[in-house]
């Protein structure tokens, strides 16, 4: 025997009322006069004659079917619920979906964001500001009092305009858990984020869905996985940079081309400049590192250096200061002169000392490895992963801006 839906007439206005939920339907709203009718007994009763002057048209027409995970469901009920908080009131829409074997599911829509919702028959583990379900942890996003504002179609429970329920939402995008507390019992449900486009395709609705605005509580972040992959790329590039650095160090010329020891005695001699023997800088233009090692103790010395190209006579002047008191400072100094063309060179050194006499070693190395470019490259490599992390964090910040538990 095939079970048929039974039609009825509204006892308030006499208009026809279609039933799609068979005997599961407890309450139905007359589409003509918007009265809420009790269909649980053969003599249909009017429970509530309500409703705003303006009629709200569901985006998904009641009676439309869609397939969700292989099962066909029909939209049979529609309600608008609203929440009032310190920022004002906002409303969202809920569709009741029905299959005579698999039961009831829900769709919710807010600002173009959708959720496909199923009531749970297994308890989540709730502890204050978080809830755990099937190995996933959900964070409390919002708790509010939801009020039924408008109803259409049919419901397997008692539905009234003006009824309130306590709702707590927990999120783990793209999933959400909701606990609805009527005072007598708590009903848990799980929602999964859907886009308007997916809903339109599932129901084969004409036109385009209203575009989504803002970020919804369990909307999956478009940045998901991007920081991780950017940091992974960074690690690879940094490793490559490290290898280059090692190779660079290994192939650097790094050869001592000159070394000499000098002694300075206090008095007039300290002002007399000395001129070193010639040394040769070979290869392509490269740096020269000049190291001044002294035996200064509790003393101070200043060296006026000139690096002179013997054939052109061009000099590069630089001063180096060594101040050593106690053991806190180094008695040595090192300076790198970049881009020195190949050729014959000598140094002219004019040391000054505060007091006493001391000795110093001058050593010149050609082509020492330098690392400034390496630091610059490392900083440049950091930009994409840092940017990705900041963008992802920004999205989450905007999501939680809507939360009452941020």
């Amino acid at each position, binding site marked *: 025997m095939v079970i048929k839906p039974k039609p009825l007439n509204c006892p308030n206005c006499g208009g026809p009322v279609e039933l799609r939920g068979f*005997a*599961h339907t407890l309450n139905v709203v007359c589409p003509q006069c918007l009265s809420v009718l009790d269909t649980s007994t053969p003599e249909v009763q009017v429970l509530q004659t309500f409703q705003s002057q303006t009629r709200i048209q569901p985006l998904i027409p009641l009676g439309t079917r869609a397939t969700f995970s292989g099962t066909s469901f029909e939209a049979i009920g529609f309600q608008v619920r609203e929440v009032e908080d310190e920022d004002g009131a906002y409303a969202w829409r809920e569709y009741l979906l029905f299959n*005579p074997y698999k*039961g009831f599911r829900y769709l919710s829509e807010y600002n173009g964001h959708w959720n496909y919702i199923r009531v749970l*028959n*297994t308890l989540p583990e709730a502890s204050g500001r978080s809830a755990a379900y099937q190995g996933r942890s959900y964070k409390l996003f919002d708790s509010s009092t939801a009020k039924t504002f408008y109803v259409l179609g049919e419901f*397997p429970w*008692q539905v009234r305009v003006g009824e309130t329920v306590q709702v707590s939402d927990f999120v783990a995008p793209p999933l959400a858990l909701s606990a609805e507390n009527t005072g007598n019992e708590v009903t848990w449900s799980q929602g999964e984020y859907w886009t308007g486009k997916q809903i339109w395709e599932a129901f084969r609705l004409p036109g385009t869905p209203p575009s989504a605005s803002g970020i919804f509580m369990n909307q999956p972040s478009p940045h998901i996985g991007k920081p991780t992959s950017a940091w992974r790329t960074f690690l690879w590039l940094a490793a490559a940079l490290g290898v280059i650095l090692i190779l660079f160090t290994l192939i650097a010329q790094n050869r001592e081309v000159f070394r000499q020891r000098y002694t300075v005695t206090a008095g007039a001699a300290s002002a007399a400049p000395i001129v070193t023997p010639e040394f040769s800088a070979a290869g392509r233009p490269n740096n020269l590192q000049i190291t001044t090692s002294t035996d200064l103790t509790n003393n101070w010395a200043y060296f006026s250096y000139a690096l002179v190209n013997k054939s052109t006579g061009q000099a590069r002047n630089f001063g180096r200061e060594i101040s050593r008191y106690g053991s806190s400072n180094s008695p040595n100094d090192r300076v790198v002169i970049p881009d020195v063309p190949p050729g014959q060179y000598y140094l002219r050194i004019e040391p000054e000392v505060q007091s006493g006499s001391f000795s110093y070693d001058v050593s010149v190395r050609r082509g020492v490895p330098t690392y400034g470019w390496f630091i610059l490259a490392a900083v440049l490599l950091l930009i994409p992963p840092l940017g990705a992390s900041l963008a992802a964090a920004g999205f989450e910040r905007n999501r939680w801006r809507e939360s009452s538990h941020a």
Partner: protein
Amino acid sequence: MLQSNCPNCGAPVQFRWSSAVQTTCEFCHSILVRTDVDLQHVGQVADLPADSSPIQIGTEGAYGGKSFVAIGRIIYEYEQGGWNEWHILYNDGTSGWLSDAQLEYDLSWLVQPPEALPPADQIQPGRDFFWSGKRYQVTTLTRAHYKGVQGELPFQYWGRAEVLFADLRTTDGDFATIDYTESPPPLFMGRAVDFDDLHFKNLREFEGWS
């Protein structure tokens, strides 16, 4: 299969389950209770309320490696609708219950309570019980009306008025219900199940749905 005749109308009455204590006559809706010698006519089922459970007497299914067939049911109604407690006979000769509450399904079996159960006035939603290492939380208290019976049941069950059930659930899909109609209250324990887990055959058909 045991065969007998209805003491009220004379129609043949069949038992699928040898341990059935009560059944109903398909023709005159008499409630029949088995005694040692014969069938006794103890009452009459009022017209069953319209119901849209996809399950019917004779619906087959399978769960946990055992097949079952629905042989009887008790129908309840409360302010938020109605539900069916289907009495199901497993192929190993045991029987249990399949509850269909607005197409949410739970399987359960009568068990010995692990502890003395509290009286009805001491139980409320949110109360926890720790049974065999699991936390069972009372999720709902349902005050319902008995609306009728159909087919074979493991006990005499008819002419009831108001009944009270406490439903309990765990965080991993276990289900339990305490039936406060009886004293001491019997405990049924089992699992929350999905429609697809039950591999049904011989279900009812609904116009427009195939």
